């Protein structure tokens, strides 16, 4: 009926009569079904392939006998006539097929059916693999896309940041430059003089702050930030931070409410860094609260933690900025028209410092204009002894008179301006100063002047500060080998600190020098080494 073409077909062909008895099938069919001619020809299709009925596929044959052609896709049916899988493709239990059943007509009458079966096992396996690969590629593309977008966003933030930095550094320099020029070029009265100088000082302070912030961030990023841990009373820290900002608080007529528990609250912390944290939060609150507004500071102990809340009734933080408030480089408005200057690093540094102390910080605001509050939790010190010695930040030193009468100080620095400044400051406290411009001369003068304390710059030509102190330390104790020594340094890296100490210095002071701090250090050093008999040497 089908003729010789069917013998060579690459598909299975099977013909039945109108009662579904198999009339003929081709070679492919015989081979693949692994049934002999005798098992097929003349048998009823529904009996040879019994699962046709159980699977409900017999209805397709009935449809065909009713004149309808039917396609059976692989995906929806898997196979029509059960046959063993082709060799070499082990993944399937059956041969995977797509099939077609059509009626055979004689004129208008249906006289039988013809079934065409195609082995699609290989095609299916290939398609599955391809799909998996495609999906993998899409996933990769999506993650690349996301990474790229993140990188671009970061790049944009950094660009904005650099623009900020440039602006923030130049602005105070501008003021410093301008006012010094005025002082140099025109006749000024005492009042203008004072004003110019205080402006200059203010701007220097602001510059130092910016550079410190930048260095802090750099330290944090490179993992070099270190805490100098001691027992700290947070109540004192808060008190000091408030006092520090008192001028601004008063100038802006801010009502400051302190709600601090009367007994001391001890934690393990870095005194200076804690000051930094509190100062940052308070000055932010001040920055964003209008004149006449209110700031509240609360301190209490909760569940083994010290809880500090700084609350203001100013600006507030908008909903879409709130999640980013602690992120580096972020400011609510980073554009050039922004109202509030600064680099947007403060809160990021604060968060890092708080976390380094083992604590947490959260920000909360009900939106613009409703104020904001910042809550810090720091683990309390488990106190054994209530009489632990407490170190607190030095209170306002400006009001303390330093009296170094009879103290001899040797200053070694190759920079004339530096020497001059130190001389003025130290002479003010009645110390006896000798300044020299190089280490060689200092070594010569050492035995003649017999200083009680030595202050030395590190970077000097020929003999630098390190070599200088090593030579001093090599002297016998009676000749001043154990003299207290302070290093003045521009570097403050941890490496550098170690070097300074191992060379023989007792302590280092960073430039630009905070003179009040320097005086305090001198005072402490003198006391430590018990040099009370100043005139005895």
């Amino acid at each position, binding site marked *: 009926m089908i003729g010789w073409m069917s013998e060579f077909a690459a598909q299975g062909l099977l013909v039945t009569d109108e009662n579904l008895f198999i009339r003929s099938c081709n070679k492919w069919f015989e081979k693949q079904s692994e049934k002999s001619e005798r098992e097929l020809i003349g048998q009823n299709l529904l009996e040879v392939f019994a699962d046709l009925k159980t699977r409900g596929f017999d209805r397709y044959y009935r449809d065909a006998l009713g004149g309808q052609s039917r*396609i059976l896709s692989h995906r929806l049916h898997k196979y029509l006539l059960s046959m063993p899988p082709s060799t070499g493709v082990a993944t399937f239990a059956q041969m995977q097929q797509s099939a077609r059943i059509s009626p055979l007509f004689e004129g208008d009458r249906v006289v039988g059916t013809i079934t065409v079966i195609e082995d699609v096992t290989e095609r299916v396996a290939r398609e599955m693999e391809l799909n998996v690969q495609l999906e993998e590629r899409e996933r990769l593309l999506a993650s690349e896309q996301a990474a790229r977008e993140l990188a671009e966003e970061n790049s944009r933030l950094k660009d904005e940041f650099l623009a900020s930095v440039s602006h923030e550094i130049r602005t105070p320099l501008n003021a410093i430059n301008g006012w010094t020029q005025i002082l140099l070029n025109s006749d000024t009265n005492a009042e203008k003089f004072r004003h110019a100088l205080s402006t200059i000082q203010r701007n220097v302070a602001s510059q130092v702050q910016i550079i410190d912030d930048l260095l802090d961030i750099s330290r944090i990023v490179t993992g070099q930030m270190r805490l100098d841990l001691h027992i700290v009373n947070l109540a004192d820290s808060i008190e000091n931070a408030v006092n520090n900002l008192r001028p601004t608080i008063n100038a802006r007529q801010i009502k400051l409410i302190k709600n601090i528990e009367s007994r001391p609250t001890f934690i393990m912390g870095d005194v200076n860094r804690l000051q930094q944290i509190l100062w940052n939060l308070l000055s932010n609150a001040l920055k964003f609260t209008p004149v006449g507004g209110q700031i509240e500071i609360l301190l209490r102990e909760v569940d083994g933690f010290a809880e500090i809340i700084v609350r203001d009734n100013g600006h507030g933080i908008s909903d879409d900025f709130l999640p980013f408030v602690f992120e580096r480089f972020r400011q609510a408005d980073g554009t050039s028209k922004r109202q509030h200057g600064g680099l947007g690093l403060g809160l990021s540094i604060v968060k890092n410092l708080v976390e380094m102390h083992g604590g947490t910080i959260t920000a909360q605001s009900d939106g613009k204009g409703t104020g904001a509050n910042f809550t810090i939790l720091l683990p309390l010190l488990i106190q054994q002894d209530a009489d632990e010695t407490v170190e607190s930040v030095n209170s306002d030193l400006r009001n303390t008179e330093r009296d170094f009468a009879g103290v001899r100080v040797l200053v070694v620095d190759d920079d004339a301006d530096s020497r001059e400044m130190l001389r003025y400051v130290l002479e003010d406290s009645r110390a006896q100063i000798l300044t020299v411009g190089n280490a060689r001369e200092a070594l010569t003068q050492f035995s003649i002047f017999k200083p009680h304390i030595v202050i030395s710059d590190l970077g000097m030509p020929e003999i630098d500060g390190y070599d200088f102190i090593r030579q001093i330390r090599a002297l016998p104790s009676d000749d001043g080998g154990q003299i207290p020594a302070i290093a003045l340094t521009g570097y403050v890296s941890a490496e550098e600190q170690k070097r300074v100490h191992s060379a023989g210095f007792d302590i280092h002071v960073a430039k630009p020098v905070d003179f009040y701090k320097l005086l305090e250090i001198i005072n402490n050093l003198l006391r430590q080494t018990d040099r009370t008999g100043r005139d005895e040497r």
Partner: protein
Amino acid sequence: MTLTDRQTDALGEFINIAFSRTASSLSEITGQRVLLEVPQVEIYPIEEVASNLARFLPGDVASIHQPFDGAIAGDAFLILNYEGAVRLTELLTDNGGVRQQYLDESAREVLTEVGNILLNACLGMFGNVLRVRVNFTVPNLHLESLDELIDSVSKEHDGLRYAIIIYTAFRIRESAVTGYLVLVLSVVSLQRLIEEIERWEERQEQEIHTSQNPAKSDLSV
């Protein structure tokens, strides 16, 4: 040629039966609940088909084409837009979690079968219910632009042709894929089709009438 409201209703009802049979067939095969939305039926001369469908079928379309002849002759098409075609395949088959990215051969087979089932249901109804002889073979799947599709259809025949456009949607697993069943017929075939549907409707009404009034039917015997 325009249909009366009554004729349009009758045609709609007729198609509805075919569609619900298709839906149950697909439900049975896939083991999922497949619904075909109640179709909206419209008739246009073939020249107007492109403009009417163009905004729903931009880009490439997948069409499953089944020509038929006999007492009523013409071409039947199931038309989906490309994304819809991919989506429909995805919904109907369980791919083991791997997403269908494009129409590979297996997907095309599935679409052809869907077209086959739908067109069989419609054309089958012509045969069984309308008592009109219609012969048809297995359909073919084509991927091309809508314009190309219509061109190839128009080219084949001369004379005025009409298209019955039936707009529907496949609803599976809370998703919907819209599709168009388009029957292109000559004027003669269309007229014959409408006549037969009207006769079918009358027969329906008579049956309802007799079943509601059994006494009357006894008398008529």
